[in-house]
C-alpha cells in the first residue's frame, strides 16, 4: 500500500476482516475507450468497525462500494480481488454472488425515494430478502419482516408492513431499506451516501440507527460519503480517495484532525464548519472538558468567503426603510377545502440593499416557496409582496416584467438549469435578448464575455455547450446569466448543494466578491446551516411554512431562540470526531430529557422521520 496508513499496526492481531480489497481496479469501457475509475485500492473492514470511504464526486468511492458487493454496471471490469470472508467477489459468478448478497454482504443506497419497488408492499419487500436466503414459510417471513421494521424504529410495524413505499417519508423509506439490508444479519453492510438525500435531523436519526445496529450485531460497515461531519460522527477509520486511488488511511481522529496528505488537508479546509456555542450547553462541557471543543468554538466566528467582514457591515443599517424585497404576512395555500395545503403561513421577511439573507429549513419547510414568492413566480393567497418599492399586486403585467428584470436567479441543479441545446453564449445572452431589445449582437457578445470574466471563466467558454462544463463551471454560467441585467437582487436556491465542497467554496467566493463589487442583495436558500452561517448576514429559519425565528446569523445560530433551531443545529454533524462525539451525547441527553418531560413529542418526532 502506497498510501499512508497509520492503522495497520492496530489492525494486526485482531479478528479476521469481513472485507479485504487487494489491489482492486475497476475500468469502465465506453465508446471513446477504456476509463480507469479505480486503481490499486487495498483496504479492509473488520467486524463491528466502520470504515469511511471519502472523496469528491468522480473519486471512485461508489465504484469501490459496488465492486465489493459485485453490483458494478455491465460495462465495468474489475481486477485484483475483493474478499468477503473467503469468497472473491471479483472472480465469482452472478449465481454465487446472489447467494452472498443480502446474507454475507448487503447495501444501503443514497436515494430512498427510488430504492424500493413502488408497487410492492414494504413488508413483502423485506420478506423477499429473508426468503432469498432462508427456507421458511411465507407467513414466518412476513412475521420476521414486521420484527425488522420494529428494529429499525418504524412505529406500528404490523400495520406499516402493509404500506406502499409512497406512503412513507424519505427517512422511513431509508429505514425500510436498512431493514432489508440487515434482514439476514450480514457480516458487512455497505452504505453508499445513506443520509445525503435526507434532512439533518433525519440524518442524525438514521446514523444513530445504523450505529446501534452495527454495534448490536458486530457488523462491519463500509460507509461511502462526501460529508466529513458524517465521517466524524460515525467512522472508526477513514480512507480518502482521489482520482481512483486511496491517498490516506487512518483512524478518524488522525485523518480528520491531523491530516498528512496534501489533498486531505485541502478537502478538510474547504468544508464549511458550523460554529457552535459549546460553552452555553452544560452537557457538552461535562462530557469532555479536556478536548478541543473550546478551541474550535472559539476560532469559528469568522467570515469565510471573500474578503469583506460580513458580520460587521449591516450593524449600522444605513437604509433602514429601504428594502429590495419585502414579504408581509404572506400565505400560500394549494388546493381547496379539505385538501388545502398551507405551503406558507403568515411569512414576513425582507432583504435590504447589499445584504445577504439566508433562508434555512428542512425539506417542506417552505423556503423555496418563499423564494419563489419573492421572485413573483407564485402569487400569494394573502399578504403582500413589495419588490423594489412596488407592490406586486398593484402592478400591471408589463411593469411586473420589468421589475423582474431586476432579479437574478441561480437554481440548484447545474445540469437542468441550462438548456442543453444552447451554447453558453446563448444561455447568458437570453435575458439580454428579452429585456434589452435594443442591444446589438456585438454588444451582447461583449457583455457575455465581460460576464464570463466576472465569474472567472475564460471568454472562450462562450462557444461551448453546457455539457462540456463541470458542475461548478455550469453554476458559474448560471450566475453570469443571473447577473446579465445587473440585478439588484440575486435569489440563489441551493446553488451549491449539488457541488463538491471545494467547488462550493469557489462558487460562494465568486458570489461574495461580485456582491461586494456590484452591490446586489442576495436571498440565499439553503439547507446547509454551516454554509449559511459563513455566507449570510441575517438568517431566517423556516419550519412547516412558518418562520420559526430570524435575526443576525451569528446571534441566531450560536444562541438560537427556539427549540426547533436548537434541534436543527444539534443534528448537524461537525467534521471533528472528538467534538462530534460530545455533541451526539448532548443531543441524546437532550432527547432523553425531552422524552422524560414530554413523551408524546419525542414519539411524534420519531414518526415524522
Amino acid at each position, binding site marked *: 500500500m502506497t498510501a499512508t496508513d497509520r492503522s495497520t499496526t492496530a489492525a494486526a492481531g485482531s479478528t479476521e476482516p469481513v472485507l479485504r480489497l487487494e489491489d482492486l481496479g475497476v475500468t469502465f469501457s465506453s465508446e471513446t475507450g477504456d476509463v480507469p475509475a479505480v486503481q490499486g485500492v487495498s483496504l479492509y473492514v473488520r467486524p463491528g468497525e466502520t470504515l469511511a470511504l471519502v472523496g469528491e464526486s468522480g473519486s471512485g468511492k461508489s465504484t469501490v462500494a459496488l465492486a465489493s458487493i459485485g453490483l458494478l454496471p455491465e460495462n465495468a471490469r474489475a481486477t485484483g480481488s475483493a474478499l468477503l470472508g473467503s469468497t472473491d467477489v471479483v472472480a465469482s459468478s452472478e449465481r454465487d454472488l*446472489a447467494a452472498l448478497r*443480502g446474507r454475507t454482504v*448487503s447495501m444501503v443506497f443514497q436515494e430512498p425515494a427510488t*430504492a424500493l*419497488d*413502488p*408497487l410492492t408492499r414494504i413488508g413483502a419487500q423485506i420478506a423477499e430478502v429473508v426468503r*432469498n436466503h432462508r427456507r421458511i414459510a411465507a407467513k414466518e417471513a412476513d412475521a420476521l419482516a414486521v420484527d425488522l421494521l420494529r428494529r429499525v424504529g418504524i412505529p406500528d410495524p404490523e400495520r406499516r408492513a402493509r404500506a406502499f413505499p409512497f406512503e412513507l417519508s424519505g427517512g422511513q423509506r431509508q429505514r425500510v*431499506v436498512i431493514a432489508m439490508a440487515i434482514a439476514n444479519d450480514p457480516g458487512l453492510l455497505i452504505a453508499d451516501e445513506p443520509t445525503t438525500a435526507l434532512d439533518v435531523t433525519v440524518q442524525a436519526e438514521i446514523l444513530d440507527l445504523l450505529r446501534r445496529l452495527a454495534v448490536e450485531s458486530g457488523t462491519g460497515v463500509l460507509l461511502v460519503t462526501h460529508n466529513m461531519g458524517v465521517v466524524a460522527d460515525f467512522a472508526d477509520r477513514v480512507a480518502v480517495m482521489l482520482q481512483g486511488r486511496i491517498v490516506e488511511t487512518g483512524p478518524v481522529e488522525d485523518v480528520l484532525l491531523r491530516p498528512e496528505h496534501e489533498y486531505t488537508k485541502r478537502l478538510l479546509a474547504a468544508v464549511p464548519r458550523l460554529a457552535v456555542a459549546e460553552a452555553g450547553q452544560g452537557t457538552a462541557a461535562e462530557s469532555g472538558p479536556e478536548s478541543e471543543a473550546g478551541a474550535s468554538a472559539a476560532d469559528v466566528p469568522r467570515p469565510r468567503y471573500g474578503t469583506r467582514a460580513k458580520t460587521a457591515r449591516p450593524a449600522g443599517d444605513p437604509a433602514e426603510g429601504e428594502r429590495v424585497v419585502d414579504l408581509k404576512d404572506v400565505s400560500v395555500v394549494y388546493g381547496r377545502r379539505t385538501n388545502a395545503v398551507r405551503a406558507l403561513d403568515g411569512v414576513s421577511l425582507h432583504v435590504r440593499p447589499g445584504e445577504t439573507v439566508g433562508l434555512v429549513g428542512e425539506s417542506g419547510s417552505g423556503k423555496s416557496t418563499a423564494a419563489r414568492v419573492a421572485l413573483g413566480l407564485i402569487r400569494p393567497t394573502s399578504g403582500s409582496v413589495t419588490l423594489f418599492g412596488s407592490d406586486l399586486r398593484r402592478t400591471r403585467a408589463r411593469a411586473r416584467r420589468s421589475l423582474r428584470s431586476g432579479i437574478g436567479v441561480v437554481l440548484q441543479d447545474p445540469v437542468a438549469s441550462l438548456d442543453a441545446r444552447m451554447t453558453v453564449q446563448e444561455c447568458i445572452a437570453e435575458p439580454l435578448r428579452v429585456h434589452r431589445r435594443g442591444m446589438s449582437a456585438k454588444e451582447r457578445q461583449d457583455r457575455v464575455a465581460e460576464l464570463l470574466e466576472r465569474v472567472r471563466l475564460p471568454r472562450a467558454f462562450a462557444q461551448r455547450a453546457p455539457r462540456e462544463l463541470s458542475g461548478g463551471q455550469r453554476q458559474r454560467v448560471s450566475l453570469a446569466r443571473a447577473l446579465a441585467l445587473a440585478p439588484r437582487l440575486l435569489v440563489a436556491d441551493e446553488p451549491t448543494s449539488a457541488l463538491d465542497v471545494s467547488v462550493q467554496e469557489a462558487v460562494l467566493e465568486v458570489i461574495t466578491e461580485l456582491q461586494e463589487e456590484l452591490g446586489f442583495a442576495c436571498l440565499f436558500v439553503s439547507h446547509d446551516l454551516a454554509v449559511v452561517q459563513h455566507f449570510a448576514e441575517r438568517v431566517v429559519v423556516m419550519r412547516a411554512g412558518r418562520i420559526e425565528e430570524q435575526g443576525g446569523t451569528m446571534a441566531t445560530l450560536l444562541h438560537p431562540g427556539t427549540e426547533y433551531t436548537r434541534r436543527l443545529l444539534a443534528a448537524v454533524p461537525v467534521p471533528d470526531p472528538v467534538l462530534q462525539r460530545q455533541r451526539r451525547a448532548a443531543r441524546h441527553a437532550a432527547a432523553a430529557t425531552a422524552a422524560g418531560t414530554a413523551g408524546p413529542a419525542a414519539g411524534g418526532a420519531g414518526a415524522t422521520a
Partner: protein
Amino acid sequence: MNTFLYLTRRVLQAIAVILIVTVATFCLLHALPGGPARGILGPQATAQQIAQFNHEQRLDQPLPVQYFAYLGRLLHGNLGTSYTLNEPVSQLITERLPKTLVLTVLSAAVGLLLAIPLGMWQAVRRNKPVDYIITTLSFVAYSTPVYFLGLMLVLVFSHILPWFPAQAPQGDTLGQVFADPAALVLPVVAGAASVVAVFSRYMRGATLENLSEDYVRTARAGGSRRAAILRRHVFRNSLTPVVAMLGYYVPVLFGGALVVEQLFNYPGMGLLFWTAAQSSDYPVLLGCVLVISVATVIGTLAADVIQRFIDPRVKEDRA
C-alpha cells in the same frame, strides 16, 4: 378521492366525449358530397324523387334539428333504419357486434400474451441477436398492411399448407362461431400481428426503463435472482404504461377488424360498416361509429381503472 366519486367523474367525462363524437361524425357525414339520397336512389334519380326521399327521411330539415332528433331517438335505443337493408340499425349491430368482439378480443388477448413476454425477453437480451430479430419482425409485422398479411396467411396456411380454412366461421350465432375454432385461427392471427408488433415495443421500452431503476439494484443487493426480480418487480412496474396504451388501441383494433372481416368474409360489424360506407347508409354508419367510440371510451376507462388497481399511487395523485 374515493373510488365511487372517481368513477362517477370518469363516466360523466366519458359521456361528454361520446356526445362530442356524435356531433363530429354527424357533421362530417353530412359534409360528404352527393348526400344520402343520391347514394340510395342511384345516379338516375330525378330531382323530384330526391326531394321526396329527403322529405320522407326528414333530410330536408336543418342539420341541428336532424341531429337532435337523432340524439333523442338514440336515447330510446333507436339508431334508425338502414336505407339499404330496411332493418333497424340497432338490430343489425346487436347481431354483428358480438362476432366482432370475439374477433377483436381474441386478437388483442393473443397479441398481448405474445407481446408481453416477447418485449421482456428483448429487454433482457438487449442488443443481442434475439432482440434484433424480434425488432425486425415487429417492424415487418407493423408495416405490412393487414389485407396483405391476411392474403399471405391464406396463401400459405390454407392453400399451400391446408391447415386452416380460408374463410372465417359463417354461423350467425356465437355458438356456431366457436364450433369451428380452426376457422378462427387465421383471422385472429391477422388481427393480432400488429398488436404483437406494437405492444412488444412498448413492453421492451418499459422493461428496459424499469431494469435501470434503483429498486432493481436494491433487490439484487438483497440477493434476489434476475428471474425473480423480473417476475416480482419489473413485470408489474412495466405493465402500467402498457395498460394505459391499451385503451387508446381499441379503435385501431376495430379498424383492423374492418379489413379482416372483409378479407375472411366474417359477417361482423366491420363488414357491416364496410358495406354501409359503400352505399352511404347513414344510419348504419352513424350507429357503427357510435358503437366504436363508446367501445374506445369504455376501453380507456377500463385501462384507467385497471391502472388504479395495479398502481396504488394513482389514487393519491388524483386526490
